[in-house]
């Protein structure tokens, strides 16, 4: 009745069930965790604003970012992927999201971010609608767990208006 095989199978099944239960419990706990993120960002300089050869507007800009993401970390957090996007609406697109900066935060000690971002990624439009455009900076985060469900969040930071003419 209780052969080697059945015992092994029973042990493996129990282990798998317990692991799944532990993951589910960890994710459930994470879902109740309410983070309080504090962040600010301001565009300090438009470095270059021109139309590319392929016909798309391109902006390189500098912005300062201060963000305290420590509250995102729980005991089940492996890392937090934080990034800032420029978001705006054009006649062609109801939503444009362009990533300007991103950073992998491996632990809580490094979660207080103070940076001066000098165009890590340029802001490139689909077309030529960036002149005089009002653009919103949004901070996003993506919490990656040791095991279980992944959680996303975001926070609008500040708005800026691009110049009415190209710089070069």
């Amino acid at each position, binding site marked *: 009745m209780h052969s080697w095989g059945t015992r092994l199978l029973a042990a493996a099944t129990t282990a798998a069930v317990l692991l799944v239960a532990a993951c589910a419990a960890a994710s459930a706990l994470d879902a109740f965790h309410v983070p309080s993120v504090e962040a600010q960002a301001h565009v300090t300089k438009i470095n270059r604003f021109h139309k590319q050869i392929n016909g798309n507007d391109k902006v390189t800009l500098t912005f300062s970012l201060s963000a305290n993401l420590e509250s995102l970390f729980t005991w089940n957090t492996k890392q937090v*992927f934080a990034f800032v996007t420029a978001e705006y609406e054009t006649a062609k697109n109801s939503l444009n999201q362009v990533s300007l900066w991103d950073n992998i935060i491996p632990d809580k000690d490094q979660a207080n971010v103070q940076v001066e971002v000098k165009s890590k990624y340029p802001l490139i439009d*689909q077309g030529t609608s960036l002149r005089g455009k009002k653009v919103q900076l949004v901070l*996003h985060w993506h919490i990656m767990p040791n095991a279980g469900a*992944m959680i996303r969040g975001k926070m609008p930071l500040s708005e800026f208006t691009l110049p009415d003419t190209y710089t070069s």
Partner: protein
Amino acid sequence: MGFIGDQVESIRSMQVRQVLTQIISLGMIVTSALIIWKGLMVATGSESPVVVVLSGSMEPGFKRGDILFLHMSQDPIRTGEIVVFNIDGREIPIVHRVIKVHERQESGEVDILTKGDNNFGDDRLLYAQGQLWLQKHHIMGRAVGYLPYVGWVTIVMTEKPIIKYLLIGALGLLVITSKE
């Protein structure tokens, strides 16, 4: 004669019955695995609800051998999400993060650009020749859950087929030799 014949008859019928039981129990195992897989497909809306990470392009978040649970809802795709996508002419799907989204005003169609967290540049070099954006139909699902290491089982089995055959053989032997 009659006595021996009865004995032979009873042994033969017992074996037939046992073999049938074993075939049925084997069938039950196979079909229940199929039911779980297809049930997951329906529940998640993705044609492959679980994927194994094969490359290090998303390290340190996802390493080779980790598994991701996918979900495909009607929600629009946004930056920061990790999506699994297929490129025309490429067999193996890719798991990367969305870094750009352009959503059309009227049709709601999206143009998406992706990048691996651990890669220096975006994914345009991985896309098909001349392809600048991913569209909705390239996306197989977005990653919602994560489990480390479990995917090594399948990686080992695909790279060392001998282990797979040994395992299948051992399991088959177990099923055949196991008594009630």
